[in-house]
């Protein structure tokens, strides 16, 4: 009985005599254990999520007492707003560049540190340092490194004959620049996940491949990569969810989404409307729309995972 339950992922049972009163005691105990969590969850998540939808149907301004019902007007305004669609586009561009960069760099670093190199542990610790820093600190540093006037990045590029580039002042370059800073900041997490994934690949597969005459490259393409697929998908799913919500980098590095609105992301858009413009109803519509977009992306990625992984 207990093994069946275990396989189903349900709670395991104590193999002790049971009576009706014991059973009731267990139920009461369970709800007492759950109570604190359920109370907090109901107030700060369930209530808040439902309330968001309701607020989004009202013209709700922070500093005005009346909040008239306006139906879908907020959503209609949102869909008519070019700035919103530009923000969506910036967010998608940024997310694709950043997730690609962190995944590739994370995988490459993981492959390198899982080779029997001297100082494996040291490199692992070193390469994870940026990830521990606050977005505040990395923002201050990268704003300066990317400076068009005195920035060290431009200095490095000057050795290759590149003329100074105004990274944060050029609407076409600001997203790649923010993405570069973010890749530097966050590739450590995918690296650690890839290391764990690589360590999970049975050694005997490589030995068998060696016997069959496979070289290192073939072993990578035909063993490592296919077996890492679940890990790659996990890393890209969590990466997309995380980086789609980018806020701190444009908020700090480009002073809230500049130049102009070239680095406005969807969360910057939400911030500007709800907390700079005090339009809570409109902001709620933005938040609900962002949530829907992300739920669709997540569901799609789960669909891809469950369909593709068949080993």
């Amino acid at each position, binding site marked *: 009985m*207990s093994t069946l339950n275990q396989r189903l992922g349900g*709670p395991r049972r*104590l193999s002790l005599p049971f009576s009706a009163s014991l059973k009731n005691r267990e139920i009461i105990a369970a709800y007492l254990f759950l109570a*604190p969590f359920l109370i907090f969850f109901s107030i700060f998540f369930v209530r808040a999520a439902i309330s968001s939808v309701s607020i989004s149907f009202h013209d709700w301004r922070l500093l005005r007492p009346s909040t008239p019902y306006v139906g879908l007007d907020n959503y209609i305004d949102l869909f008519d707003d070019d700035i919103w669609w530009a923000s969506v586009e910036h967010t998608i561009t940024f997310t694709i560049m950043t997730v690609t960069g962190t995944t590739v760099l994370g995988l490459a*670093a993981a492959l390198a540190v899982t080779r*029997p190199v001297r100082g494996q542990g040291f490199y692992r610790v070193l390469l994870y340092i940026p990830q521990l820093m606050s977005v505040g600190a990395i*923002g*201050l540093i990268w704003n300066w490194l990317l400076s068009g006037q005195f920035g060290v990045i431009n200095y490095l590029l000057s050795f290759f004959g590149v003329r100074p580039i105004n990274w944060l002042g050029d609407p076409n370059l600001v997203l790649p620049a923010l993405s570069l800073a973010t890749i530097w900041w966050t590739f450590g997490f995918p690296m650690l996940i890839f290391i764990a994934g690589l360590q999970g690949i049975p050694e005997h597969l490589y030995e068998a491949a060696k016997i069959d005459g496979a070289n290192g490259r073939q072993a990578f393409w035909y063993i490592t990569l296919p077996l890492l697929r679940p890990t790659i998908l996990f890393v890209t799913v969590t990466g997309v969810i995380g980086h789609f919500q980018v806020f701190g980098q444009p908020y700090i590095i480009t002073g809230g989404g500049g130049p102009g609105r070239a680095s406005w992301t969807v969360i910057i858009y939400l911030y500007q409307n709800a907390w700079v413009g005090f339009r809570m109803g409109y902001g709620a519509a933005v938040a609900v729309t962002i949530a829907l977009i992300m739920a669709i992306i997540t569901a799609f990625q789960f669909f891809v995972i469950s369909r593709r992984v068949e080993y």
Partner: protein
Amino acid sequence: MNIRHTGLYKNFGAYAFLLVVSAFVLFPLAIAVSQSFMTNQEVNRWPPKVIPTEPTLEGYRAVVTQQDIRLDLWLRNSLLAASGYTLAVLVICSPAAYAFARLRFPGNRPLFALLLVTIMIPGQVTLIPNYLLMRDLGWLDTFNALIFPGAANVFGVFLLRQFFMQIPLELEEAAVLDGAGYFGRFRHVILPLSTNALTALAIFVFLGHYNDLFWPIIVTSSLETRTLPVGLSIIQSSYAGQYRPMILAGAVLSTLPILIVYALFQRRIIQGVTLTGMGGR
């Protein structure tokens, strides 16, 4: 081990790559540290100087004495709020995880499945209602606003449940024979055996909270209640054009505590991040 050859020659590519990535990681940090010891004139120069001619603590002095910069308070706030939040998550989530992992009650499975589905709903939908609630409760600009709204952490429940389910039932049975009730089993059997998972979760939620920017920006407003990331963003917006070495000194000083903690507990932290990252598997 056969195909992953040992030796410098066979691993030349790995060494070369690690060297390049290490340089990529260290370079921005080295520049920030080095230029934080320069004068303003020395920093604003083309071509940029990498090593200060005459290292000076001017930037550091400025960042700790400036009236509207309170790194000490902001660091204290960040540490206190993140610790309070971490404690709240552990206290709220671990009993719930125990109930889901071990206790039989009507609705266990459906309730847990429902919780997992909510992970797909991003937290942004809760921002505005929770902000309005903080305002109505009078919690704006207080630690309460930084600690409680996110304390019911679904991921924490999920992770701890996974871990609790792996603990052998026999240990609990022994405790029951000794007369332990549900709380006794949880407190004296499950929790002591789960320090790894609890530490991992603690590290994970602590770092997440310590680095959060959006929520602290909207719920704090006075200089004294700001957290470190918010404070740093204020330094950037107020002094970006004026005093760069001071800004870099702020970045360095604010990173130092976390680097010290990392240096002391790097194994634990890396294990913890990996464990939570893999969802406890």
